[in-house]
């Protein structure tokens, strides 16, 4: 045995630790949104891939004309918002799994801000395309 007993930092009972701070009363929304966005991305992504094939070889003016159609702009924005929302939900899961301690909260914030800004950038780009195309008519 060591002459000086090792310092014990946590003496809280196992039950106290297991109960912790209690239930946060959230999680079901995140879990459901993950599934809804994943299912929505199936048709949206299929639509996008088909459209890209149809636009293959098109010149700039044609693409701008395509982007000025309300249906196309709507679908594009829906795709972008759903994609980045889904990415946010998924990345949060990865952060929860692998990042512990003090780094957890800032990393979570970084994921939220990063995906939101990227999504916003995509939406603005579609709006710009839509406005440019509509003005050219």
């Amino acid at each position, binding site marked *: 045995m060591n002459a000086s007993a090792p310092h014990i930092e946590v003496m809280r*009972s*196992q*039950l106290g*630790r*297991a*109960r*912790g701070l*209690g*239930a*946060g*009363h*959230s*999680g*079901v*929304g*995140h*879990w*459901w949104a993950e599934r809804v966005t994943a299912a929505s991305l199936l048709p949206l992504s299929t639509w996008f891939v088909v459209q890209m094939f149809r636009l293959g070889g098109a010149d700039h003016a044609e693409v701008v004309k395509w982007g000025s159609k309300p249906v196309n702009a709507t679908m594009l924005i829906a795709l972008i918002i759903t994609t980045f929302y889904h990415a946010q939900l998924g990345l949060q*899961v990865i952060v*929860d*799994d*692998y*990042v*512990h*301690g003090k*780094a957890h909260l800032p990393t979570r914030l970084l994921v939220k801000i990063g995906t939101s800004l990227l999504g916003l950038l995509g939406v603005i780009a579609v709006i710009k395309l839509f406005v440019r195309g509509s003005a050219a008519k």
Partner: protein
Amino acid sequence: MVELRLPRNSTIGKGKTFPAPAGAKNVRTFRIYRWTPDDDKNPVIDSYELDLDTIGPMVLDAIIHIKNEVDPTLTFRRSCREGICGSCAMNIDGENTLACLKPIKDIKGDVRIYPLPHMPIVKDLVSNLDGAYAQLRSIQPWMQSDSAPPPDSERRQSVEERAKLDGMWECILCFCCTTSCPSYWWNGDKYLGPAVLLAAYRWVADSRDEHTGDRLDALEDTFKLYACRTIMNCTQTCPKGLNPAKAIGRLKELQLERKI
């Protein structure tokens, strides 16, 4: 942050070899994790060469033979030797299971035996399950009913209601599933783990229990329940053939059902 390798004091070294008795024909090597808190040494793998013709068919028979005849210092838990007490849960041939239900002949090559993964070790194959037991207690695994039971009989349940408990009452709390779950390895302090969630759903599904909503309230948490990533190691490893992943899925569905 992310841990990519074992802590220095957990890296496993090479241990002793106990050769087979002279004249043994049907020899198998059992490679077993050894660690004791009595010295400051790292864990090692000891090799025991046994004559399968002289021992019983199960892995538990082999390690009892080792303890009785070869090396009395080998430490492990065991009791019923027929898969009903859950004591001899350990990691055999890379999978968590009960040593008493695992036939040696089902394993190819050397038989590798480790304690249940990612739990503190008490000694050798004995892992410390205090945290998991406390988590079980935290979900209050007992009947909670405000209606008084009939004065002259037990609380009654229809055949259909009783059938909903099948696949859950059989759980023997060996924690093979919980300790096989990567999500539990990552967040075992906050995530309750499949064994405890199966027990929680057993009471949510019980028609005689009247605190279903309270139980769902207590589970609705980013980690306690929703740290489940549907990896399904729990269902794959369960030595009793139960399906904790399905119970966890049902809990999520019920929480959704009361929201929309």
